[in-house]
């Protein structure tokens, strides 16, 4: 596939970045053509962590398949589960009790903060600043501890199920979330001091990987990647699910389209998530945390599509049912897959150092891309 010497006829260098490379944060394999330091082409090769989740789900029942999806975008495992649960509920036409809805949204937003924290640290590490990583992990650990107490797991929560959530919240949940919010508000200033306000950082990010709004839509970019280009695509606002329609929060839009805009979208989004949590944490309704559902779920014949906003963008779950206990075909439209496809477009003409900044701000999670 590649020439023996790794050099194109024009004399450009072909460099393999990955599948084991510090900047890809996983097993992404990019074949890049370099002219000196300038990138001429980026070609992603996928499949190093493809587990064929779609095929696996075809032989799992509607209760079982949700747990596999935690392993897709493992940083927003909760939101993946949420999407699947919502899709099954859409088919079953089950009404989720208000308490379960609030719990789901609370955990979703906590997951989003944790995911953005990890992104922040990892992206800073990509462009050469190590210290933010540890500061980000301090907050992320707190969230993971809260999750562990309620869900029993720190990363792959598996807390959602069709009809509601697995169990009630832990009694400590409210107090710990409140103290986390206090801690977080105190620390957010540190982030700005450490990285956002740094002149080197700004120069590394500004006008790097500019993505026009038209390209963002055409390439199917979603989430903070598209919102950094000014494309309104927050599923929580456009197609509200659960209690997102009742809470007050802003859809963050930046118009620059460059890496700095994408960065700022995520930083500001974390504060919006805090806002949502603050509104909901005191008013968790009383009642059931689960709707009554049958032991064996059977979806009626038909097609069901559910989209949710994960930390990376729009996750679509498309279930084709033949009326049995297992899905006939299931498709996950993962945000990372489409966001990755734009990399070649925005990376061309940039420097090698820009590539890691772009990959950082696209927030690629490889298991999410490969599924």
């Amino acid at each position, binding site marked *: 596939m590649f020439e023996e010497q790794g050099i194109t006829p024009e004399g450009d260098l072909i460099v393999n970045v990955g599948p084991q490379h510090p900047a890809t944060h996983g097993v992404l394999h990019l074949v890049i053509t370099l002219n000196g330091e300038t990138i001429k082409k980026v070609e992603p090769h996928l499949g190093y962590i493809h587990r064929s989740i*779609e095929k696996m789900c075809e*032989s799992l029942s509607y209760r079982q398949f949700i747990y596999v999806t935690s392993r897709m975008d493992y940083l927003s495992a909760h939101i993946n589960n949420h999407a699947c649960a919502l899709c099954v509920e859409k088919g079953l036409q089950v009404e989720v009790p208000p308490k379960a809805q609030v719990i789901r949204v609370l955990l979703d937003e906590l997951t989003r903060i944790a995911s953005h924290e990890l992104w922040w640290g990892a992206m800073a590490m990509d462009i050469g600043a190590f210290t933010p990583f540890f500061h980000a992990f301090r907050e992320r650990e707190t969230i993971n501890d809260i999750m562990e107490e309620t869900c029993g797991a720190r990363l792959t929560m598996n807390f959602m199920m069709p009809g509601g959530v697995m169990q009630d919240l832990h009694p400590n949940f409210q107090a710990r979330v409140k103290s986390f919010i206090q801690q977080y508000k105190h620390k957010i200033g540190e982030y700005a001091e450490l990285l956002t306000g740094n002149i080197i950082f700004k120069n590394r990010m500004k006008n790097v990987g500019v993505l026009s709004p038209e390209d963002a839509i*055409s390439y199917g970019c979603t989430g903070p990647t598209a919102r950094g280009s000014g494309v309104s695509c927050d599923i929580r606002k456009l197609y509200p699910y659960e209690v997102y329609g009742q809470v007050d929060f802003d859809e963050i839009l930046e118009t620059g389209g460059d890496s700095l805009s994408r960065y700022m979208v995520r930083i500001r989004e974390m504060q919006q998530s805090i806002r949502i949590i603050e509104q909901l944490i005191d008013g968790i309704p009383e009642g059931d945390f689960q709707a009554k559902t049958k032991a064996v779920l059977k979806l009626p014949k038909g097609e069901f*599509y559910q989209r949710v906003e994960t930390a990376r963008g729009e996750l679509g779950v498309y279930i084709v049912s033949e009326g049995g206990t297992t899905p006939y*075909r299931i498709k996950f439209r993962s945000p990372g*897959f*489409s966001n990755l496809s734009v990399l070649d477009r925005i990376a061309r003409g940039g420097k090698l150092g820009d590539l890691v900044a772009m990959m950082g701000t696209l927030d690629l999670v490889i298991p999410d891309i490969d599924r």
Partner: protein
Amino acid sequence: MLNDELRANISQLLTNTSFEEGGEWPTLTLGADELLPLALRLRDDDALFFNYLFCLTCIDWKTHLTMVYHLTSTKYRHSLVLKVKLDRDKPAVESLSFVWRTAEFHEREVYELFGVDFIHHPDLRLLILPDGWEGKNPLRKDFEDPINMIRL
């Protein structure tokens, strides 16, 4: 309702349309040769303005394959589902990667997992499967792998 307006709009555009009943969004079933012209019209028509292809996949119905395209408009926020029936032995359909760029990657995925041939695709190569993959397409219903596949 949004969907009814859309149905009326599209009916004007096409002479013999048949919308599938049920489902969240209006669903059109087309022949393989009708797809590309319709896609271009859907994207470029100012009243429809379907500029965002948010999902592209394929379903193996054992007798035939069905390509499913989920479209939406970022301007009007209406959505449409296009379905194309394909022959199972020699599936081929016009590529939409020039209409919506996101289709390029999704079509490559469908190409290797279902074996659908996308005509005029700019770069139809294996994306996920290892180079030199021989054998059946993994997401087809008759795919068997005695070593790696676990039946529950």
